[in-house]
């Protein structure tokens, strides 16, 4: 993936407790925000960058609605401090569809009806994306392990697994 911006080395000076400038690379774009050190990546995305596709379901690392990719790996953005994301690449649900074209995982979620309320969906999709990036040919068990940290209270799980498998087939056809 082409890097749109140069990553900057993390600063080593003491910052806070008042607001401080934090540079975040989100979806290949560099943003500079002014926040307190206690700002979580989740709140920074939602409040400071207006990227509300990442959801707050528990704010304590238990539900997975806030899942984003941190250097390509899924993490809970509610348990990540924004100030500690400098020099790293963050990917959110908003980056998946390119030029109005849905990502195959998104398309598969619609076709399989792998969602009901849709609140956990962005997190589920990102966990699956991280899986398919390293394992293009997953088994149902691989998928289940990959989304085992993403709770869905509506119970879309069986279809989420099906959607991931469909997307994997689609992606391997494309490549």
């Amino acid at each position: 993936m082409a890097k749109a911006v140069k990553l900057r080395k993390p600063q080593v000076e003491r910052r806070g407790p008042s607001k401080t400038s934090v540079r975040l690379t989100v979806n290949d774009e560099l943003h500079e925000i002014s926040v307190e050190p206690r700002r979580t990546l989740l709140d920074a995305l939602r409040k400071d960058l207006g990227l509300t596709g990442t959801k707050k379901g528990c704010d304590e690392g238990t539900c997975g609605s806030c899942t984003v990719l941190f250097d390509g790996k899924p993490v809970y953005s509610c348990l990540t401090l924004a100030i500690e994301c400098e020099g790293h690449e963050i990917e959110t649900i908003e980056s998946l569809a390119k030029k109005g074209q849905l990502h195959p995982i998104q398309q598969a979620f619609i076709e399989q009806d792998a969602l009901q309320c849709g609140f956990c969906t962005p997190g589920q999709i990102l966990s699956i994306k991280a899986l398919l990036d390293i394992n293009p040919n997953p088994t149902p068990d691989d998928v289940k392990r990959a989304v085992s940290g993403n709770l869905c209270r509506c119970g879309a799980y069986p279809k989420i697994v099906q959607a991931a498998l469909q997307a994997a087939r689609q992606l391997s056809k494309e490549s």
Partner: protein
Amino acid sequence: MPRVVKTQVEFEGRFYDEYVVIEGEDVPPWSAQQEFSVVGQPQTRIDGVERVTGAAKFTHDIQLPGMLYGKILRCPHPHARIKNINTKEAERLPGVRAILHSANIPKIPWRMGLTLLFDQTLRYAGEEVACVIADEEEICEDARELIEVEYEVLPFVLDPLKALEPKAPKVHESGNLFHNEPEIYERGDIQKGFSSADVTIEGTFRTQTALHNCMETHGSVALWEGDALTIWDSTQHIFGVRDVVAQALGLPKHKIRVIKQYMGGGFGSKNSAGKYTVMAALAAKMTGRPVKIILDRHEENLAAGNRPASIQTLKIGAKRDGRLTAIYHKSVVNVGAYATWGGGTTGPTRRLYACPNMKTEDYSVFTHLGPYSAFRAPGYVEGTFALESMMDELAKKLRIDPLELRLRNYAESDPATGWPYTTKGLRQAYHRGAELIDWQGREAFKRKYSTHTKKIGFGMASQIWGGSGGPPAYALVKINPDGTAVVVTGTQDIGTGTKTALAQIAAEALHFPISSVKVELGDTQLGVYSPLSAGSMTLASVGPAVRVASEEARKQLLDVGAQTLEVPREELEIEQGEFLNRRTRERTPVKAIFEKLENFMIIGRGARGPNPEKKSVNTFGAQFAQVEVDTETGRVTVQKIVAVHESGRVINPLTITSQLEGGIIQGVGFALTERRLVDERTGLVLNASLETYKVPTVQDVPEIVAEMVNLPDPEVNNLGVKGVGEPPIIPTAAAIANAVADALGSRIYDLPLTLDRVLTTRELP
């Protein structure tokens, strides 16, 4: 001309007579043989793109310029009186804009007058004491910590049986028994019934308090523009929120607009406005800025409602051939500090089987715990667990196959009213389910796959529920000059796929492709009333109104088309969104007509007609469970659930299986892992987080085989549909419990079936 009719409306297993206004004529129901192009076909969600791209705006996502945040200070005691609140320190914190509490907010009655918006008496740990409004949520939290509250700590009671004792601490002045009396139902002569029985069995069952844990927590955003208030609320009932806020603030309803486009689950916990809704509105007024209050996960699990715990005693009498002669069912439900209605669990007992003699008693008891609210088939999940467990015990005692026992007591008409059913597909569900799980082959399967330490078991359970829907529900269908159509209703899509199903109905009735149909809902300003999205009633209430409106719009379109094209009306029809001249086979796009008519817009109106009189409308189903119990670790693994349900006509086979699977998975959680834990000495909830309150993960999900008996109901409404939101959760825990009892050879009478219970119930070698 509008007609006022009296109709019976069922909601959450209860019946109400209502006067409603019906406008226009209903249309005859679609016949069972009707051929469809859109209805009954699997249809992906019309708002799927929004839901998978993060574009869908939930209440949590509403960000307004200048918006402030609110956070609620909650009582740390199960019962206390506020002696003094000191907010001085908190107010001094930069960024704090207001602090609302009992000393500075007028007395606004809440929970039918049982308490106030800010009450000085607090009746459960987690009840609202004050609300801090500040520029940032973090500041709210800093300030909240600085509020000094002096409490007079009062004696409390958590156990419903203790709460019924005369000297128990009172939760409310009026006493601890809801309505001051049990809800009693009787039919036949129970004494005679038991004395004519060949066998009687009795058991006491306990079910736990379950927490909804919608992924999107409850919350509201309030914005004043002049004297008009707009509220975004994560709610199942926009009009209900409007009405509650109007009453609380003394505002005319037309000054309040409530919006809910997307919501992250409700499951019954979002049927009305919350205190946070009114607090946001008050705070926004006080500060002149929009205010957002979102509960955190812990608050959600303390204050946003629950499926209340029950203690149920059942006694069943039967003839040797299995025919029931009498049932006595007593249920004590711990409804916590507040309840809008009783927590009755005896509904299924009254209505599932043809049993002539019966008595049920429901005690709903107030305690100093978080309030009860509806949770997907309230009462029926718990009641079905007890009843269907007892039926299996009876089957065991009589050495009759459990399924056969149920068939021998099959109710051909409603045993509670004597009325015929409009349709009843339970027998088909039993047979199809038995076939899919290979019920007859289960003993052989068990022998083949059980080991010394891993025991396989099979169980089944039945489901009855309402789901008729009913009036009032209204819809408009507009046809735009470009030949697209817009369905307008005041309902809400809580994730069930309402929007898509309504689009299918409109497309079918208009003869339009579904891609030309848009659905607008979730906004009271649209002005077309629809009921709350609960009680499995949405589609069966709103759908028929949409069909009437669509049929009317299509008729108007044909009238206009015939005159504009100058062809006889009867030669013209609409196909795939175009005029088709039946004689010449000539096609004309709808928009070509409108071009001649400038900006004329067709508006069709529709209302939901009344329910059939003296007929029972019910939904039915059967579920079969296959489990494996590891006798060394106590773990129960549900390997497979077969579910066959009958809810009338299926509009969307794709989304209906989502509903079925979702209900079953919640049922698995209720059966195995979910339970609220409360410390008896402090009255504090110990597991208000999603790490400690165990909802099912993807790895807890069994293989699910879910099917519908597609049995269009010829009488219930013009679509032949009944609801399906709640039915699939109803029998799951019962079927699993029966399977576990089958595997272990002995029964655990309490839910959930956690490994500690399995390990300590069964003495290990």
